[in-house]
């Protein structure tokens, strides 16, 4: 550690997981995340771990479910259509209160869609995707370095709260190369895994389960889990704000689009426009408070996404009608250029 290495996003994510103690990876190939399972298939045997290419995404996530129940740090990765298949298993993992890390390198959809970068899985990632009342913690890096840092922290977050954590990128994050340094994540006080199913020697048998046929009991379990989600909302929100002190227009974007918005903002600032950037790093929990406070000072928001408009709904909820929230989106794998965003900001009056 301490050394900077040039790495491809997908491979850096794999190495970060190994550095974080992940020794089990179950996956199924899909573009544009294939370098990640390929990397794990090379590296895991070197560190005494197990890589297994499952027969399907459905099987892969259920292998994750079993391995998590057996107490392991375990990860899977996929891209949009594959993540849809994993949603059944993710609901069970959430229902059984198990920790794991799921990487989604998002591509255009719906259906088979395309293989170019997109952000159109926001709803699926943050609003459920699988059935039932549950959440995943959703982390959205905007650089390879941040992907590495967040993947390492993701395992701790998962273990601390016993929840699945999704790291969401897109083809751009997965495929580009940047220098990275593997740093120790901040130390967390993690609870003992006394609930795992690894044979009941010396104790009463443990059961990992999400079935609860009595409605009163299931309701109680759901509210208890909800309380845990409230704690996550209190403790785990991550957001970056840039140039928001005097901003009149606030750009809101995450991941790849936040980098493009940053470039647009720099150009606009040079021309005297008072533009700032709010970059949610956790998509769930969403940085509602940061946006709500910003709404007291700015004249308008412009949410930029590679979708037809998904996160913009959370921005509007946070703004709660105080000022207008505008939206600019490209979809289908199209990536917006800084010029497009500059044009949009200027059309709003630009805060000059």
């Amino acid at each position: 550690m301490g050394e900077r290495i040039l790495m491809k996003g997908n491979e850096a994510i794999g190495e970060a997981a190994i550095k974080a103690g992940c020794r089990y990876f179950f996956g199924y190939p899909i573009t544009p995340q294939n370098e990640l399972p390929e990397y794990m298939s090379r590296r895991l045997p070197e560190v005494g771990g197990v890589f297994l290419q499952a027969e399907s995404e459905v099987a892969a996530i259920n292998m994750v479910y079993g391995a998590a129940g057996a107490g392991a740090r375990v990860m899977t990765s996929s891209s949009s259509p594959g993540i849809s298949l994993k949603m059944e298993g993710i609901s069970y993992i959430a229902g059984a209160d198990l920790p794991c890390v799921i990487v989604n390198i998002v591509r255009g959809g719906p259906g088979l869609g395309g293989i170019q970068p997109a952000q159109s899985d926001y709803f699926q990632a943050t609003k459920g995707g699988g059935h039932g009342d549950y959440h995943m913690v959703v982390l959205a890096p905007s650089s390879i370095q941040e992907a590495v840092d967040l993947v390492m922290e993701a395992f701790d977050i998962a273990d601390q709260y016993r929840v699945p954590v999704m790291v969401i990128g897109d083809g751009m994050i997965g495929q580009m190369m940047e220098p990275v340094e593997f740093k120790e994540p901040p130390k967390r006080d993690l609870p003992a895994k006394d609930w795992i199913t690894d044979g009941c020697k010396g104790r009463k048998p443990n059961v990992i389960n999400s079935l609860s046929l009595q409605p009163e009991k299931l309701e109680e379990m759901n509210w208890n889990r909800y309380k845990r989600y409230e704690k996550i909302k209190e403790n785990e929100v991550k957001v970056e704000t840039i140039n928001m002190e005097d901003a009149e227009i606030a750009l809101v974007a995450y991941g790849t689009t936040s980098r493009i918005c940053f470039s647009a903002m720099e150009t606009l600032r040079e021309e005297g426009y008072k533009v700032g950037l709010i970059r949610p790093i956790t998509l769930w929990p969403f940085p509602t408070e940061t946006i709500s406070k910003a709404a007291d000072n700015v004249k308008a928001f412009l949410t930029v996404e590679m979708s037809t408009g998904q996160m913009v709904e959370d921005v509007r909820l946070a703004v709660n009608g105080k000022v207008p929230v505008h939206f600019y989106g490209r979809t289908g794998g199209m990536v917006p250029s800084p010029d497009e965003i500059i044009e949009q900001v200027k059309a709003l009056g630009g805060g000059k």
Partner: protein
Amino acid sequence: MIKVAGRPESLTDKQMHYCPGCTHGIIHRLVAEVMDELGIREKTIGVAPVGCSVLAYEYFNCDMHEAAHGRAPAVATGIKRVLPDKVVFTYQGDGDLASIGTAEIVHAANRGEKITTIFVNNAIYGMTGGQMAPTTLLGQKATTAPYGRDAEKAGYPIRVSEMLSTLTGVAYIARVSVHNPQHIRKAKKAIKKAFETQLEGKGFSLVEVLSTCPTNWGLTPIEALKWLEENMIPYYPLGEFKTPEEVE
């Protein structure tokens, strides 16, 4: 007083929910007796299915992990890969294993996962109320085959043991029945052999157990046992389809 029979330690004392005449209780007991005899209760992790035996995790007195419909072999794979020195078994019905979970069982078997599957075949969906299963016999009535299963429309009853025994990764496959005491003893022997196969690290093992469903077959428990013997066994022949000796 000499105690000649008792509850196996590997079963809890929870009262089972199964219908009168259902043979799940017998099969549970056989698995538990085998676990006791092999002394593996404290190193075993069972994977419970969806279906009538969905509550198996309440009956087996060992660590248990519930799975989604059909996914038990994948869940068991995850557990066994993390804990190669422990014993992992799945307990699955025909809807679970032979329909929605066909891919999972075929590939777990083909990988030679060192797990044991107890496959309970009663030729019908029990828990959901008597719908057609992949194993429902031709002409057999079910709520979704009210005129009897017609091969033209619904295909043929699937012979899982025969199919899986063609796979190289498989070490032991047997089909047994529990319709009378003689066959119950044979069933136990097969289940024991399946667990021993796993303990010896030889590969995937599965025991298909022909079982009754008096409720959904619309028969009395006695009639159901007779129906099993007369109708199921001719189509689903009993015996060992692959043994560890053949693997070596």
